[in-house]
């Protein structure tokens, strides 16, 4: 299974037509895939809270949005998640590369990884963790759930899900 294609297919099938990204090595393939899709407007942002602002505007303009970012962004976006996305009840699927988990080569990434789920839980953000490739089968249902309940929803995708870093 090509998980990059599957993710992009599910986004399109769920009428998600606005995607903003702040890149991560693990996300390079899915970002590249999204750029090949005519049905998706891709606007890279410079910081993840900026991206959530773009998504809020796009949603109010009639486009379903999604954001693709690293888990380090949870540390950047807590105020935005609480006072914009949650306060105004805006749906936002967050496809998050979960750095600092199993098969991570960079020690510093673990420092945010150990806080990631606790912060999401503190914010009452529904959170899913993709560890095996087959976990992507739930992605379509998670998107439907997000736009049913008008909440930010986190999909954490770790290095094992993406196939690791070659030899490491």
């Amino acid at each position, binding site marked *: 299974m090509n998980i990059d294609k599957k993710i992009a297919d599910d986004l399109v099938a769920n009428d998600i037509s*606005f995607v903003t990204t702040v890149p991560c090595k693990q996300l390079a393939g899915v970002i590249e895939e999204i750029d090949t899709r005519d049905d998706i407007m891709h606007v890279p942002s410079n910081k993840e*809270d900026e991206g*959530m602002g773009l998504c809020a*505007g796009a949603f*109010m*303009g009639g*486009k379903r949005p999604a954001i693709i970012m690293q888990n380090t962004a949870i540390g950047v976006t807590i105020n935005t998640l609480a006072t914009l996305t949650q306060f105004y009840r805006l749906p936002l699927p967050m496809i998050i590369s979960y750095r600092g988990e199993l098969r991570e080569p960079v020690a510093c990434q673990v420092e945010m990884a150990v806080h990631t789920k606790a912060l999401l839980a503190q914010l009452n953000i529904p959170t899913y963790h993709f560890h095996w490739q087959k976990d992507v089968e739930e992605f379509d249902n998670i998107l439907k759930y997000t736009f049913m309940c008008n909440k930010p929803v986190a999909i954490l995708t770790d290095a094992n899900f993406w196939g690791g870093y070659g030899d490491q």
Partner: protein
Amino acid sequence: MIRSEILKDIAPILRDQLVVCNIGIPSQELHAIDDQPTNFYMLGTMGLCSSIGLGLALAQPKTVISIDGDGSVLTNLGTLPTIGNNAPSNYILMIIDNGSYGSTGDQPTYTGKKTDLAGMARAAGCDTVIEVQDVDTGPALQAAIDSKKATVLVVKCDSGNAKMPVITLDPVVIKHRFMEAVKA
């Protein structure tokens, strides 16, 4: 002129447009001067006014005016390259630059010192950047709307706030009536 006097001046122009208004006293002033369903008031989240407006302009064809402040643009400077590289023709970022953090007690920002927001917007790739004095805001804003070009309008004015009530509208109500107005 201070911001509230400018907003009173341009209220007849804003009335017919989609407006995303910055957090704090700017939204309180606009709400008190001329509340409209076409106004989206930010109740929190300093810095994202320009980003919300840009997302809205990219998603639909009506003109969108983000009414931002110098302090808020400084806190989200990454917005300028994103605007410079993506802004569609229906997007206007109007920065009311009073050289101070108005909502928090008028502490000075760097735009009252050496920092030039219009120059930063140009350097970030924004093609049409206009700087005007407060008294010229109305004609400059109308010209930007009529030009159908993505525009950054920097309005230089005095520091100060009008005393206006806090907005008590529920955020979901603000969002809902705004989205209905976008669709109308």
